[in-house]
């Protein structure tokens, strides 16, 4: 049991810090949240900088174009970039954190050569077309159909909640290729071009007023059969690979960010007198325990992944359950610190309070995560 980093890890950290200090000032100005083309340009510019410096796909395997870094190095990378105020992975999220790793693990040599380098260089953006209006938590009930026509699939159906769809070049798309097979067996995983004829994206407005995600209508979209990752009708298994990447280290940087926010909240409370209220003060103290422990749990999970060969474990569900709740608590406390100003959307944290509401829903709701913990970790019987 050790929390000290090795000399090599500390060297890695020092080099990264130095590089961040040198390049971050040259980053373009942050675009407004509603400026989608601006956001895409900003996020991909950052990815390109990472690529040029040899930090792109740090945790990807070397033969997929990555750096083959250990989980601990990846942890350090996420910690330091967040501390330095570097951009969040943003629009590169799906490509870097799940489509890319899935293609690296399940794709052919040709597919890897086609799709991985542009993700790493920041040339292409991916989005995730899994959810449908009638298939959210129950993803395996998806109905978007793909019918074989020669060397193409003809895809029709509807997807929903597709984050970053407005600026994506590619979509990791789940489709039903065998409607007669049992639910989990007739699904395939396709890479679909977002500018293909028949794809219509209609932005959805979130409760925060932004258009973070969209509906996607697919009307006889032709997708080459060669764009299928994994075998036909084996898409469910491929999807499980994708989801395990999604939950792996996706929130590391955010825990660091939450700890910074908490310190800022304490400072604000001291400045505006809220700190004199013992109930509020103690509430912030308890949140300090939460986020310190969540950071330690992250280190625990990363160390475990490292000792088991880099595979993200079920610890991700344990983490996500507690983290999503703690994050919402943090912004509730922020509202208390702000007092009447919590109603002013231009005040810091007011918008974040709204977006924190998605954390117990996106990437698998808390209820679904509890099912996973109970059945896969605790071994309780499958129920209905």
């Amino acid at each position, binding site marked *: *049991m*050790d*929390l*000290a*980093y*090795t000399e090599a*890890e500390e060297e890695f950290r020092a080099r990264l810090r130095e590089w961040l200090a040198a390049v971050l000032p040259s980053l373009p100005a942050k675009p407004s949240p509603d400026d989608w083309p601006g956001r895409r340009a900003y996020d991909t510019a950052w990815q390109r900088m990472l690529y040029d410096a040899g930090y792109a796909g740090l945790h990807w395997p070397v033969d997929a174009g990555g750096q083959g870094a250990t989980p*601990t190095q990846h*942890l350090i990378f996420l910690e330091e970039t967040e501390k330095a105020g570097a951009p969040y992975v943003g629009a590169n999220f799906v490509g870097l954190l799940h489509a890319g790793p899935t293609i690296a693990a399940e794709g052919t040599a040709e597919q890897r050569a086609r799709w991985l380098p542009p993700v790493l260089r920041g040339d292409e953006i991916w989005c995730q077309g899994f959810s449908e209006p009638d298939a959210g938590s129950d993803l395996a009930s998806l109905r978007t159909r793909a019918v074989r026509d020669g060397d193409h699939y003809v895809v029709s159906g509807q997807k929903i909640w597709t984050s970053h769809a407005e600026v994506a070049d590619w979509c990791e798309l789940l489709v039903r290729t065998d409607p007669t097979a049992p639910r989990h067996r007739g699904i395939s995983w396709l890479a679909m071009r977002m500018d293909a004829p028949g794809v219509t994206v209609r932005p959805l407005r979130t409760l925060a007023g932004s258009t973070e995600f969209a509906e996607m209508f697919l009307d006889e979209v032709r997708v080459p059969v060669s764009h299928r990752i994994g075998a036909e009708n084996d898409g469910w298994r491929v999807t499980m690979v994708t989801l395990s990447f999604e939950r792996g280290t996706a929130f590391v940087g955010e825990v660091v960010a939450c700890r910074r926010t*908490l*310190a800022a909240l*304490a400072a604000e409370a*001291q400045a505006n007198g809220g700190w004199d209220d*013992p109930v509020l*003060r*103690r*509430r*912030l*103290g*308890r949140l*300090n*325990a*939460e986020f*310190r*422990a*969540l950071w*330690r*749990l992250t*280190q*625990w999970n*990363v*160390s*475990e992944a*490292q*000792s088991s060969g880099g595979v993200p474990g079920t*610890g991700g569900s*344990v983490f996500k*359950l*507690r983290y999503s709740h703690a994050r919402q608590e943090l912004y509730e406390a922020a509202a208390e610190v702000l007092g009447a100003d919590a109603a002013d959307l231009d005040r810091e944290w007011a918008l974040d309070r709204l977006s924190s509401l998605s954390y117990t829903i996106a990437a698998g709701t808390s*209820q679904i*995560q*509890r*099912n996973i*913990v*109970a*059945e896969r*970790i*605790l*071994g*309780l*019987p*499958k*129920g*209905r």
Partner: protein
Amino acid sequence: MDFQLSDDQRALRAGVRELLAGRFGRDRMRAALDGGTGIDRALWRELGEAGFFALRLPETEGGVGLGLPESVLLFEEAGRSLLPGPLIATHLAAGAVKGAAEGETVVAVLDAGQPVGHLGDADGLLVLGPGEARTPGPGSGPEPGEARAVTGGALRDVVREAARPVRSLDPFTPLWRVTGPVGPGELLSGGARLRDEGALLAAAEQLGSAARTTEMAVQHAGEREQFGSPIGSFQAVKHLCAGMLVRAELARSAVYAAAVTADRAEIAGAKLLADDAAVRNARDCLQVHGGMGFTWEADVHLHLKRAWLRSGQWLTAAAAEEALAADLC
């Protein structure tokens, strides 16, 4: 960074678990419960021989020479098995109070305002000065951050004149309330550290209890059938169990990390989360057991009562939260 148990630590944990299963398994535990709850001196000495109390004393002083992380693993096992007695105080007094390291003497702890467990059985009393955040109460006693050891005639005086027994919530922990003056005792070095370490070890016991009640709930949920199915197949029950695991695992990260860093704020966080996990997991475990959970026969009430008691010892939630708030400034 390798924040996992080392092979030696795993072996240590397995060894203690085996020792306690042999010497204080469920049958012994229940027999002890029925047969009066004095300290089992033979067991105490065996724990001493196994290094339970001298674990962190240097080898040159007859100790085992290990550190806080190893102590935490030991106390986690103690918490799992409901092992009674002032284990933490005796462990902290090893090297300072004669016979504590060997398990020859039993050292209880007096923390102003708190009832004292096992005072009647004790050969020594660790008297804690008030924590930094509190204002010292009236009377003599140690200064803030100090700790003193009271033994011999002075201790007998406390039991005879200054204390009276209390009907204890926890059947394994006879309690005494000390209302009169306590002799000055011998000043121990590193008094403030003792309070922190005590809080950490109590957190470790809470963690062991929280993990154990999770196992008990999961086992019962897998066996008990209602409506033609194991109750663990019902989502309401499943989600209770999942919540228990999440609390225990978060507490585990916090407690282990605090053992490695020995940082004050980190220890406060560990105690806060481990108290929460032990108390709430015991309550949920009781719920999963249904009517059986409300009986004396099921062990869950023993975990709950001990968890409640420990929550008020060494570092309360209020003090921990204040310490963690101060850490943000």
